[in-house]
């Protein structure tokens, strides 16, 4: 099989792509999707560590389960917010929700 570093590099790549997506995209839902990517990469990382380094306690796998749970809840709530934002401003463009400025 593949060594541990492969998994780490893979999750690093996905995570960086997710960061780029969060920072560069205009649509709020797209930003959310990038956040999902990041969470995924992190879970993968944790499970890889659990499998390779911590076989007795497999903390990483448990962590990944909880990450998935919380991510699902968070997506639901975040999308509710986006829908509300859309209702108020008729746009889901985060650049235009900028009233609280100096």
């Amino acid at each position, binding site marked *: 099989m593949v060594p541990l570093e492969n998994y780490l590099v893979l999750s690093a790549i996905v995570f960086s792509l997710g960061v780029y997506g*969060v920072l560069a995209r205009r649509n709020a839902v797209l930003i959310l999707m990038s956040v999902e990517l990041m969470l995924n990469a992190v879970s993968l990382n944790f499970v890889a560590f659990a499998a390779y380094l911590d076989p007795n306690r497999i903390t990483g796998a448990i962590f990944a389960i909880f990450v998935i749970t919380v991510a699902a809840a968070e997506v639901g709530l975040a999308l509710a917010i986006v829908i509300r934002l859309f209702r108020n401003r008729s746009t889901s463009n985060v650049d235009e929700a900028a009233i609280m*400025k*100096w």
Partner: protein
Amino acid sequence: MGAEQAWLLAAIPAGMFVVLALFGRKLPRGGDYLGILAIGSSFVLSFFVLADLLGTEEKLGPITKAIDWTQIGNFQLRMGTFVDPITVVMFGVVTTVALMVNIFSVGYMKGEPRYWWFFAVLQLFAASMLLLVMADNLLLLYISWELVGVCSFLLIGFYWEKRSATEAAKKAFITTRIGDVGLLIGIILLWREAGTFNIQEIIQHAEEGHFSSAYLFVSMCFIFLGAMGKSAQAPFHVWLPDAMEGPTPVSALIHAATMVVAGVYLTARLLPVFEVADGTTLIITIVGLVTAVLTAFMAFAQTDIKKVLAYSTVGQLGFMFVALGSGNPSAAMFHLMTHAFFKALLFLGSGSVIIATHHNQDMSKLGGMWKKLPITGTTFLIGSAALAGVVPLAGFWSKDEVLHSANSEWGPWALAIAGGAAVMTAFYTTRLFIRTFMGEPRDAHVYEQTKEPGWAMTGPLVFLAFLAVVSGLVVFHGVGKVLGFPGGITEFVFLEEAEKYSIDWGLAALSLLISATGIGIGAWMYWGNSTRRSTSLATSYPRAYDALCNKFYFDEAYQWCIDRGVLGFSFLVSWFDRYIVNDTGVDGSAQVTGFSGYTLKFLQSGKLPNYAMGIALGVVALAFAGILVRG
């Protein structure tokens, strides 16, 4: 009541000062009788102190009393009183002259505004001066030294509506201040080595040779600077003539008899230490001689009677310092005592003339006053004769002692210079007397208005004249025995051992000759109160006359120094304050804050992606830092 309660002499006037300062305005007659009462009680108590001192077995005193004041670390500070013959002489002088001045002021200051305040400050002054002469440590002495300076300032500037008075008060205070800084430095230097402020312990420390000689020389020079400042020796003499702006009783008390002799007292008290430090006694003598000669010249050209007396005071103080520098404190204290009496007499006499002629002090308007002011004139004649050194008045004996000590310690050259100063003294005294009291009046209008003042002013004149006549005789063994101190004053006040007084006939004759010469020249030049001969002399040597009139340009030189030095430095300081402290420090920090706030507010764009970018950049930066640190 004995010498241990000597502090009462200062406490009573001090308490009366507080009373008068608080309530004097409301008391009838401004509380002047309270002032006279306070000084009078000090006067009486001083006799008790004298009796107690004379009662101690063989060696005369000293009687001390001290209390623990404070403790700082290992250093124990004790404050107390120290009574020995020098102290008692000063007590006598200060209380007598202060009492006479207080009585005189009742007449002189009548009708002046702030009458009550005058008497209050007189009390404060008497208290501080008495405290000064009985202080047993240098710290207490310095405190009372400053206090008398403050009183002098308050009294010179008494007529503060006049610009010249406030300027004179300021000048006096600042000039003596320069000397006082030297005194403080000297005190601190002595304390560093001796570990104590107590005068007797310092003397003991010095005589046992524990000071290094260069260190002691420097410290004593600083202390002498303080004495020079307070006693108006050259080059600090510039404040005393200007101090004549104050009321005449003030001039009599402070600037003739008591405060200005504080420097003499200090030097006499520390004379054992001066003797140990080589070279300081020569410096003292030379300063005294130079001052005596210089001020005698300056007195030639003055037309204001008070200013002539002021220069004469400075010159006589120079004489006292000559005696001290020659190692003879008894001669110095003796001359101090006699000078106090006849100079106070002369000043009060001139005050009487001033009041009688309605504040006319200019000699060019006076003349022929004797017919109109008989008592004043007679007492003034006695005072002038005493100043000139006519036998058997007091001045003759004390001046003779001074010349004798100068000659025996330093040799004929000192005698010659001092003698020359004495000749000049006799000359200008004669000039003063003739122009004021003799001959024809110069200003008829002024002459018409003159009349003899009341007993409040003439009484003290008579008493002081009596003292001016007899006080010289204390030098004799017989007189001293009657009064309680056998051996006369030379065995009362002495440095190492009592000197038996013997008349040096040659020197006595020389003194008489000196006085006669001076008086003769004065009489010849101003016979019949005509200035013909003197004016012709003045026009023949115009530049010399100008130099004399302008007091050898000392004041102009000092003003030039102030203009260039002090103002230049202050320009630098003000530049620093405006540009560095204010613009950069105060304004600058405020502007930096405002500017940074203004630029930083653009971070708050309100846009979510910007904030997210901030987070991401922060994480990246931290990660980089972490890698760099941990490798």
